[in-house]
């Protein structure tokens, strides 16, 4: 199912509140760009009273499961869910089957996303062949074909020397390595945070040092080489501190965290709740607060979802056997807005920057903007009405979310990518 929303030659959005200035005004869209005025009468006029316009959001960390795991998600459903969440670009990790470690897979993903028409797909190529951590993948050729960054994601590169090679080599092609930091030996097949919950429930724990040690390793390699590195989904207080210290030393390190790390703690695992099983695991309250602190002081540059769709069978299991991960595209902005902005931790402008400008820099994209001349990528969000999250409303094939029933504000009502509607709740366009 491709995007079948009607296509308009031009669109006028009136009474829209600007995210930066807070001013209410109009936006004009023609030929896929924002313009100062329309050359012809508007085919679609949207009265966006009460809505706030944000530039199209960019997610630097998703799993679209396509090719190979289409029973969990495919590029059609994944990008549709992305548009539903206000995103106009998403970067899928390479753990597909075959692994996205060669040009044909990268091209396939970009082309299929273009065919679907819901959201740009900016593929992340594997850093090593087959994500095996032994030989470099064809980073240069993939970069040429459109891969925006390189990572072995969930299969961390255990060898420091291999990581060094990947960083050096990718830098030559002006691409960054994204590292899922987890020392596999310290993680030791753990299934939740090593803490009071793992102790009480008799589950194998993943210690926070499994993450901290590898974040330290990556920042030191980057420092030594003078090249950049991006740390995926930081979940620990130690990790935030190490990134902060590295930045202070001048290391070219950027870092992301995810909504679940600033919203939930390991307590969510109680009752063997597999929806709260994710890697890195949900940590302690002290870690959660440190992650928020890291977002506030700029240590954590980016908020990404790590959208990880799984089939019901892969979650409806004994806790240790269930897969890691949760879907997150459609709850991302509502969580950011409700927990961080309304929660008094970030201004709306700072929050949006972590979902637009900073991701754009990392992925070497033009920063999304509502300015005249920019690509008409935007999402209109309702910042006033609180709605309990209903997983059944998701456009993903999957329903694995721990956020069911959470009262959230900020759901996107209309998303436009390059002048074309990609999600419309009908609230604003209904006649």
């Amino acid at each position: 199912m491709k995007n079948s929303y009607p296509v308009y030659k031009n669109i006028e959005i009136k009474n829209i509140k600007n995210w930066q200035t807070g001013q209410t005004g109009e936006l004009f869209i023609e030929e896929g760009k924002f313009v100062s005025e329309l050359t012809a009468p508007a085919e679609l006029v949207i009265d966006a009273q009460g809505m706030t316009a944000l530039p199209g959001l960019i997610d630097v960390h998703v799993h679209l499961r396509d090719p190979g795991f289409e029973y969990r998600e495919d590029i059609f459903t994944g990008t549709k869910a992305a548009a539903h969440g206000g995103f106009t670009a998403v970067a899928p990790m390479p753990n597909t089957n075959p692994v996205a470690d060669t040009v044909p897979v990268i091209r396939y993903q970009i082309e299929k996303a273009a065919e679907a028409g819901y959201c740009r797909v900016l593929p992340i190529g594997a850093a090593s062949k087959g994500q095996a951590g032994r030989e470099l993948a064809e980073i240069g050729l993939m970069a040429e074909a459109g891969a925006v960054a390189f990572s072995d994601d969930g299969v961390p590169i255990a060898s420091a020397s291999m990581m060094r090679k990947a960083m050096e080599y990718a830098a030559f092609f002006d691409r960054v390595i994204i590292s899922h930091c987890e020392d596999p030996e310290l993680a030791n097949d753990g299934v939740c945070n090593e803490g009071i919950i793992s102790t009480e429930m008799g589950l194998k724990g993943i210690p926070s040092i499994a993450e901290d040690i590898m974040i330290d390793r990556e920042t030191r390699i980057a420092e030594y080489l003078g090249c950049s590195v991006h740390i995926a989904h930081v979940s620990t207080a130690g990790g935030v501190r190490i990134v902060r210290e590295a930045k202070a030393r001048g290391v070219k390190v950027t870092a992301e965290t995810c909504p679940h790390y600033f919203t939930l703690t390991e307590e969510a695992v109680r009752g063997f709740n597999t929806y709260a099983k994710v890697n890195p695991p949900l940590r302690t309250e002290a870690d959660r607060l440190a992650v928020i602190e890291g977002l506030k002081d700029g240590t954590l540059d980016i908020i990404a979802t790590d959208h990880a769709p799984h089939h019901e069978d892969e979650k409806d299991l004994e806790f240790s056997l269930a897969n890691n991960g949760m879907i997150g595209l459609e709850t991302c902005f509502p969580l950011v807005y409700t927990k961080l902005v309304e929660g008094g931790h970030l201004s709306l402008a700072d929050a949006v920057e972590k979902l637009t400008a900073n991701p754009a820099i990392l992925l070497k994209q033009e920063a999304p903007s509502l300015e005249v001349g920019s690509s008409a990528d935007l999402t209109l969000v309702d910042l006033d009405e609180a709605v309990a999250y209903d997983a059944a409303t998701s456009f993903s094939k999957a329903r694995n979310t721990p956020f069911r029933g959470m009262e959230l504000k900020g759901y996107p009502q209309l998303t436009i990518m390059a002048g074309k509607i990609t999600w419309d709740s009908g609230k604003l366009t209904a006649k």
Partner: protein
Amino acid sequence: MARIKPLTTAERSALRTEVEAAKQLSSHHLLGMQDLKPEEIKLIMDTAFMMKNILSIRTKKTAHLQGRSVITFFAENSTRTRLSFDMACKYLGATTSSIGASDASLKKGENLYDTAKTLEMMSTDILVVRHPQSGAPHYLASRMDASVVNAGDGMNEHPTQALLDMMTMIEYKGAIKGLKVAIAGDAMHSRVMRSNVWALSKVGAEVRVAAPPTMTPRYLDQMPCIVCHDVREACEEVDVIMGLRVQLERQRSALFPSINEYAHFFGIDAECLELARPDAIIMHPGPCNHGVEMPTYIHEHERSVIHEQVANGVAVRMAVLFLLNAKRNAKRAELELLEIQSDTDQIDY
């Protein structure tokens, strides 16, 4: 109103006992000692001593579970727990069947949901589960109508073991409140340790856990127990010394250098007995690695109650099965009692 077959006096009295018992239980599952209230533990203890009496009479058979089906589902190997549940079921007159780790469906990788539904469709009343994954009984309990009894799940809990340990302590010490209990061994992987810590702390015992640092869960001190790394320190002035099985078969990750070193620093020996109260008892959930957790002369010591624990295991499991069945029956039984009452009223007038 539908006429029902009149009950005999004995049946009526059994029914009343059940209804009373059921009122005091909060769940028709037994998933862990963490969930039980002290009153519920007391109820199980009282019932277990009653069952032990039944076991001592010549005809060791009751009809409490007649017409009820119990399935023992052991996805992990076990000899004594499985046999103990099996005997308990038979003494109570239940129809029993069992599934073991080597059974075909498990080997074929059937998932737990399908297993649950299959058992459900065979109208299982009580399911006794031993499973290598922590939380598996909780999973089954949330998806089945049957009562679920946790017979050991991963590293999480083994509630009937804690209950039989408590029963044994009550037999030898009169009461549990105020007792000092030392538990020594592989605390990290031990569901027996977890269940005992929850249970004993709830009824007023002091629990000390001694294990090598590599076998101590890092946040154990946040559970209701005192963490000692020295078994001798743990045994000072205690009333009970309990060994935990060191899972030598799982010793690939080398949590201690050698059996020799383990036994030297963490084994329960004569010195531990010297440090403990003179009437301290020795316990072990079995099977014991002789010469590792304790030497044979401690295992067979005059103060060892290890064999008595096995006997109490049957009584405790009879009590648990009886009570959970009572809880299951409670609603229907209450209805029946109401009908009996109205029948009686009619006769009186």
